[in-house]
């Protein structure tokens, strides 16, 4: 399964571009670091299956919580997924990245890998579809 961001700069006027930039600044205020994998999803469902919408009932967390609905705000068509990128061993890597730069890092089996936040950052770059320790993973933050 490949992930891409449901967003795109597409064609824009200068004015629109600023508007989009502002939007993404808000979007990126979620500084979440997660690495996800896809156990149990074979991804073989046909494209034309009816789409359902979930109503997230957060009240299960506490009776005081309000119900939240999944109401995403679509700006543009999705970006292409990122599936190819160079992987560097540490000797090369150290020439590319500064010691103070932040990374999202993971070890699977005995394979450690780091994803620089400065690379994972724009809307086109939110997810890396990768394979590590023979497991399919998505790195996002």
């Amino acid at each position, binding site marked *: 399964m490949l992930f891409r961001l449901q967003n795109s700069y597409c064609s824009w006027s200068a004015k629109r571009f600023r508007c989009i930039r502002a939007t993404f600044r808000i979007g990126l205020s979620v500084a979440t670091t997660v690495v996800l994998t896809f156990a*149990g999803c074979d991804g073989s469902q046909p494209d034309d299956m009816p*789409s359902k919408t979930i109503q997230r009932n957060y009240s299960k967390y506490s009776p005081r919580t309000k119900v939240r609905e*999944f109401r995403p705000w679509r700006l543009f068509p999705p970006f292409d997924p990122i599936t190819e990128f160079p992987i560097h061993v540490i000797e090369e890597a150290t020439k590319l990245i500064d010691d103070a730069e932040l*990374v999202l890092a993971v070890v699977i089996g005995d394979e*450690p890998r780091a994803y620089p936040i400065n690379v994972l950052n724009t809307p086109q770059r939110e997810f890396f579809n990768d394979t590590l320790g023979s497991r399919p993973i998505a790195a*996002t933050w």
Partner: protein
Amino acid sequence: MLWDNSVVMMDLETKSLWSHILGEAMSGPLLGTKLKVIPSLMTDWKTWRTIHPNTTLAFLDRTTREYTRSFYRDLSQFVIAMRNARESKVWAFDRLSKYPIVNDQFAREPLVIVFDQKSSTAFVLSRRVDDRVLTFKLSNEILIDNQTGSQWNAATGKAIQGQLKGKQLRPLVATVSFRQAWMRFHPNTIVWQRSQEH
């Protein structure tokens, strides 16, 4: 696509939409499907390459240079967070900076959080080793358990000296997040206070 200021992802195969903060399909054929979240660490390159000298780096051109250690200049904005289907808990970075070792638990899982002030890295490890639960103190950046006095590397969770040498503390899934963003999605989250420390 954004949901409550949080990024939405789409898979190519089914066109389902997924919340990246919840790791769950929110609409489409895979509605309700949860992705397994793998323990990960947010740290700086120096800290990571020191812990794992055999690491690899995935790289493309940078799109910004904003995210360095100085990103954490206001620690009070950040939390390390854990969640399951029923509850969630956060430990604020400014508190952890004051108390860099916390023996705590979440959803009955005994855990220890070690906070490295230089890199603002929170390491979250299970305190369960085989059938026993350990309690830790920190001495010169080395973890020492009260039960056997063994010494542990806080970054890797490996026992490096003492009776339990060779044992491993399991890293737990925990997420670094802006406090506000986490609270928006988990309004009833428990916020760790010093008095809760065991």
